């Protein structure tokens, strides 16, 4: 199971890097969504996988328990990641509406200005 998860992390990571290298902002965003989940999986995996054991136990309950800290960390990271990704999606939408392209090569208003003014 751990090996499977590690392979999954590797595959997802390479896919997300490939997506993020794209010039298309939308593809980049998909890559970003994936890679933030890859980080969550890494935390989950390195915390150690325990099958069928609860993270919180009561007195006299089962002696098997899962490490609860990685779960808490992943939960926090998911919430933060969700916020950031939704912000980024809205930003991308606004940028598309304002600039009129999702090609990052053409998104150079902020820096093109310098060149044109210098050449002028």
């Amino acid at each position, binding site marked *: 199971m751990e090996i499977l998860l590690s392979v999954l992390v590797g595959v997802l990571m390479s896919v997300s890097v490939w997506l993020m290298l794209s010039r298309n902002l939308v593809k980049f965003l998909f890559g*970003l969504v994936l890679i933030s989940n890859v980080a969550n999986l890494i*935390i989950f995996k390195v915390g150690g996988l325990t099958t069928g054991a609860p993270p919180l136990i009561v007195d006299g309950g089962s002696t098997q328990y899962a490490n609860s800290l990685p779960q808490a960390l992943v939960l926090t990271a998911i919430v933060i990641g969700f*916020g950031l990704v939704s912000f980024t999606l809205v*930003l991308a939408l606004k940028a598309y509406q304002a600039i009129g392209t999702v090609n990052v090569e053409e*998104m150079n208003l*902020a*820096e093109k*200005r310098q060149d044109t003014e210098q050449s002028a």
Partner: protein
Amino acid sequence: MNGLLISCILIPMLTAVASYVCPGSSRIRGAISVAGSALLLALASLLLFQVAANGPMANQMGGWQAPMGITLIADMLSAMLIVVTAIVAICVNIYAMGDISEERIAGGFFTFMNMLIAGVVGAFLTGDLFNLYVWFEVMLISSFALLVLGGDKMQLDGAVKYVAINLISTVLLLAAIGLLYGLTGTLNMADLSVRVPQVDNQGLVAVVAVLFLIAFGIKAAVFPLYFWLPASYHTLPISVTAVFAALMTKVGIYALMRTFTLIFPGEHSAINATLLCAGLITMVLGVFGAMTHSDIRRILAFHVIGSIGFMLLGLGLGSALAMGAAIFYMVHGILIKALLFMIAGIIGKLGGSFELSRLGGLYQERPGFSMVFLVAALSLIGIPPLSGFWAKVLIIDAGLHHDASIVIAFVVLVSLLGFIPLIRIWSEAFWKARPLDAEAPTLPSTDASATTADAMAAKAPAPTSNDPNESRATRVVIKPAVPVTNNPTFYAWVPVLGLSLIMLGIGFLPAKIIDLSDIAAQSLMIPDKYIDTVLPVQANAYEAPKP
């Protein structure tokens, strides 16, 4: 004084809430914000005195003993930086009252600004790696909000790059934290400092260290990873740029200092060499970048990158002496960057543009203000009685102790080259006569918004652009540029003059701050006291279950 540490974080947070919910005008919101920052400064000074008297102070959140709970800890470095942060916060908040438009304030400008300060202070205070990540996020999301507030085209364009690269850095940081937890079973920084050397798989530790280096390197705008900074900083209102330039990158440097002294100390000499090289290249490219640009804000943005290089040198040399120099440089750098950007804002208001070719004659019109700029610029470069001089002397001194002649050569060279862009600002904006076609100076509405708002209020007719350049002309049609010759208000002068006085004070009486920096550097290099403060029970007695 258990509540002191947490209240340093809570005060800006509460200020953020108060400045949002209060029903009054933008002026009241600003006043609340300034008052909150002043309170933070008072608390931070108290903290500094306490730390100076008693050594590091720790506080375990929720009553869970470290390494189980989250630790807040202030050592000398944190305390100093929080004081400086509070000073910048006051100045920028005052400046923003005259600079930021009503709509942006109604959109929550002061709220995000104070949340940003809370994030910065939290990052300085936390003793837990995952908590550091959370504070970085608090800082990041507030900075995103400040970036897009107002929503100009240019701003959005810069924001896309800033957001994209910073999110990647965040993911790398998270992955690195996860891996480190897997290796050691703890996230408490003091505990990590004890446990990381005990890890069998030191190769993987080095990999994690490099991940941290890249993640924090992006935040700090270190050499191959700095391109987001000049792409976005000049698109923002000056108040936002000032606080970003002063604080955001320095938090990255702080995180680098903390992790590479406490968690991955000197034995990874390859990393120190990398830091040194990255520092040298960052310095040189920063100053070269500054030379090639003609927009004051972009020149200063590249100077920010240059100064990051100087701080990395201190970290890369790796001795207490060098670290002390880097810390002094950091204090100087934070204040001077905030000051210079605010001065740039005033130049923009007086001259109606940030473009050097359209400025001129400021020395004739405003000799007093010119002197303020001159002092700040000379202080940045390091002309003897001013604070930059001491910062650079300390770094050269550290270089001498390490026989690192190349470092000394670069510091001197880059300082000299750093003169050129500032002399250009001086000769173009202040010295030469006001260019003729700037009779009715135009400011693209993407710039400082208050000027736009003020001019809109004055119902100024939008001039047709006399600029031959087409792309500018089309933009003018979309969002009319407005003539601005408005005088900077009281809100702009107070923080600029105040910060100038502080810079002069540091320049003429640097001894106290140099002493404090050395103490801070000592406690970074020999973190025993830091560890003992966090883990009062002998750290080795505690056995963490290996995951």
